[in-house]
């Protein structure tokens, strides 16, 4: 066990991120005091935040080889936490890049926006390392509370406020459920660190109280990963939230739920239940209901919300395999999905800035007005649909391959049928972009958005054509989970 000062150096990335958020707020205060025009946009604050996250990413990479537990086992550093921390930092940086000017008229409060995203990222990172129930609880609050504010950030937009209230209620309920589950588990087992829970559970019979505790625990995560039957909040919140926040929610928040669920389920829940079936059914329902829901949507944000539910289903297919490679394929999928979804949202934001609309029918003929953004959205949707040269193809193939290894052929069948349904509604958007004739006024794309799209597109193509490095990293992360 390392002594506390050494332990703190292992938390350097988190400390850097925490300080970045604070620094942004303080600098902004000083700046506002010294200026007469507090409403001028301050993009440099976003760049400062990005730089902070970049520095933290450097620190994560520097600590990549470290495998240890800190503070009596409540924080764990291993390849899995490294994988997720890098993913969360990348997501945070891209989201900051696309929210440099978050909302017209809200420039005065942009520092708060950036700081909240930074802290939310911090919460996600800590979740990836948390290995004790009550630490997990605190970290979850750290990610959820900023999100409530961020979702309601466009306070003059009733949809945004409504979404925020819905999310607030959801957080309250899921927190209550989770906390109840945690206390039951703690009461039944007398320990709250995950590895200890695993050990005790292996020797103990499943009592009703314990079972209830575990179910409630999993329910709490279900909301976060937006899997059926915990998905009801998703479409309204995704639609109402400011778009960069939706982008953040759709990947960062969801993956944080997975990071947590993985550690608890694989390390902690060594009990004789048919997890294959439980997660398999959740996966099948998420894919099917998500895709069927998406079919009817006319609003792109709602469509992406339903598609996100379906994608959570594909991720759960990897979990249902419950093998080292199954988890590796899940991790690979998160990276592939993350880039593709952020790419889609960036393009959606570009279009919304130009046309003021999120209706898919208003996308008619945009390919001629904004060829690059249209190409970006097309690439993103086709990657989500699982077509080759793009990350999604590889990701889906791996997930299905390892589900087949675990004997879950029926689940693979459900998955591939769903891919066909999904392609239909993705193609409908692409059809709107490319086929109808429309106006020819070019849409200008801000360089920042262009940069964000390029980064994501490069990620989507790179993972799609040369998946080996990411696959390697996923395997390392997964094997740490099973080895430890």
């Amino acid at each position, binding site marked *: 066990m390392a002594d506390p000062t050494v332990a703190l150096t292992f938390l350097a990335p988190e400390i850097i991120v925490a300080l970045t958020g604070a620094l942004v707020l303080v600098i902004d205060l000083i700046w506002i005091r010294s200026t007469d025009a507090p409403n001028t946009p301050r993009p440099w604050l976003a760049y400062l935040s990005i730089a902070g996250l970049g520095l933290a990413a450097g620190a994560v990479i520097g600590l990549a080889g470290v495998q240890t537990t800190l503070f009596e086992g409540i924080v764990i550093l291993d390849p899995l936490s490294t994988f997720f921390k890098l993913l969360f930092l990348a997501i945070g940086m891209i989201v900051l890049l696309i929210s440099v000017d978050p909302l017209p008229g809200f420039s005065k409060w942009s520092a708060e926006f950036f700081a909240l995203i930074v802290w939310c990222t911090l919460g996600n990172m800590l979740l990836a390392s948390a290995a004790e129930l009550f630490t997990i609880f605190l970290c979850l609050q750290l990610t959820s509370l900023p999100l409530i504010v961020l979702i309601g950030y466009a306070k003059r937009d009733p949809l945004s406020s409504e979404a925020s209230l819905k999310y607030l209620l959801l957080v309250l309920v899921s927190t209550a459920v989770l906390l109840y589950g945690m206390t039951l588990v703690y009461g039944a087992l007398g320990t709250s660190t995950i590895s200890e829970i695993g050990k005790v559970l292996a020797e103990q019979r499943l009592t009703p109280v314990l079972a209830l505790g575990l179910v409630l625990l999993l329910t709490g995560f279900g909301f976060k990963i937006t899997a059926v039957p915990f998905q009801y909040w998703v479409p309204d919140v995704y639609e109402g939230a400011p778009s960069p926040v939706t982008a953040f929610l759709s990947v960062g928040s969801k993956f944080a739920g997975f990071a947590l669920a993985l550690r608890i389920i694989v390390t902690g829940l060594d009990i004789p239940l048919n997890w294959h079936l439980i997660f398999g059914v959740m996966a099948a329902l998420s894919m099917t209901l998500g895709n069927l829901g998406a079919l009817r949507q006319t609003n792109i944000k709602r469509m992406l919300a339903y598609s996100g539910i379906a994608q959570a289903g594909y991720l759960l297919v990897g979990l249902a395999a419950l093998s080292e490679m199954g988890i590796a394929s899940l991790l690979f999928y998160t990276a592939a999905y993350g880039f593709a979804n952020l790419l889609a949202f960036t393009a959606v934001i570009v279009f919304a800035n130009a046309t003021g609309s999120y209706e898919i029918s208003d996308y008619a003929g945009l390919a001629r007005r904004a060829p690059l953004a249209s190409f970006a959205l097309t690439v993103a949707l086709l990657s989500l649909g699982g077509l080759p040269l793009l990350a999604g193809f590889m990701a889906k193939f791996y997930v299905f391959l390892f589900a*087949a*290894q675990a004997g879950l052929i029926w689940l693979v069948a459900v998955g591939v049928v769903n891919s066909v349904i999904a392609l239909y509604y993705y193609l409908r958007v692409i*059809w709107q972009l490319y086929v109808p004739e429309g106006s020819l006024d070019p849409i200008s794309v801000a360089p920042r958005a262009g940069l964000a799209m390029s980064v994501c597109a490069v990620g989507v193509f790179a993972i799609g054509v040369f998946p080996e490095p990411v696959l390697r990293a996923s395997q390392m992360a997964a094997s740490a989970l099973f080895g430890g």
Partner: protein
Amino acid sequence: MNTLPVLSIVALTPLAAAILIGAFGRGTQLPRVLALVAATICLAGSAWVWATYDRAAGGVQFVESVRWIPSLGISYIVGVDGISVPMLALMALVMFTGVLVSWNVDERPRLFFALLLLLVTGVFGVFVSVDAFLLFFFYEMAVVPMYLLIAIWGSTHKDYAAMKLTLFLFAGSALITIALALVYWQVGASTFDLRIWAGANFPPGFQRWVFLLMFVGFGTLVPIWPLHTWSPDGHVAAPTAVSMMHAGVLLKIGAYGVLRLGMTLFPEGLRDWALLIAIIGAINVVYGALCAMNQTDLKYVIGYSSVSHMGYVLLGFAMIDKFGLQGAVFQMFAHGIMTALFFALIGYVYEKSHTRQIADISGLMSRTPLVAAAFVIASAASMGLPSTSGFVAELLVYVGIIGRSPLLAAIAFVGVVVTAAYLIRMLGKILLGEPSQAVERIVDPSPVRLAPMGILAITIMTVGIFPATMYQTINAGIEPLLTKLMGG
């Protein structure tokens, strides 16, 4: 054998050209010139492969192998055998002529040629892949370009046809995904190398069901009855070059997939389902021909005739003997060239007269004898008349069928009769008589438009009159398969 990676050049040049066009292809001139350059390179490469493939030695040649995704044992392995060599030649010919046919596409040429070349890369890739994952990767690459090509530049219910086609193909590939995953774990050697897969022994029950998955998955593309309905709609809606590629080559990917990933891996499975395949083949032949008989739109006639002709390929497969297989592969090539020629001709007539209705067209012979002659050659090949490639193909298939089942031969022969009937009727109507009003505007095509027709017509005749080289090539390709089918 040689150090030049000729297969990679053939398969990836179109991709490189597509990227170049996407990045720099402003105006109308640059995209089509780049496309033509790519097509020429592919044609030259395929010709080189055709000329230097060692038919006596047989087997997979021109192999290139690079590790791609080692954690899963996936490699980029390309190579050709006697079955893929003719397919490569077919694709190169159709690509080259397709680019020429599209020379005057002036609506968004940059996007058009980029997508066309992307599609071509997918098809070439399928024919040269020796790794099952790589094959599937290329196969899926062809799906989306096809959708956009039809949806943007098509005609007649194009949105419906494009979506239907894409979803059918994707549904087929969904089955293939399941099958690939099953085979991968069954082989258990952490590889997708088809040469290793072909050497594995699969239990009979496994063979039966996985073969069925592969057959239906790839068969959707053949297209097998009753999953064929996307195909005539797709042919009709697509712009000319895409119809050519689509009917000419894409359907062959289906048959090729059944051959490579179905029959080669699961001979037992083939035997289990041979009767079903034969019945479906016979239905394809007769039903397709009868449907073609009833059509009033030229493109629909050829669209349904494709359903009918691909039935011979299925019949050939189902016979599990030398002649049947030879005939099937020969037919894949022959039908590809013939149907590409048909679509090139119809495309030309439609462009000039703005109609494809048989009732509105007559007297082509007196307006444009060259086009009329090409129509006759294509129809002769379609009817299987001697001195055309279609004759050799159908003869081989019939020899195969008669050896097995005279009844089936008699049923399939109905198809020949009906084919002759609808084609002769169509030819008589559109070629002879006084030129109709629509035909008044048609003149002999310009050299750029004439060249593709000439190239395809000459290929039909050459292969028909001198079939020996093609025959030897195909023979070299099916020899190992035959040994396996007979030995098992």
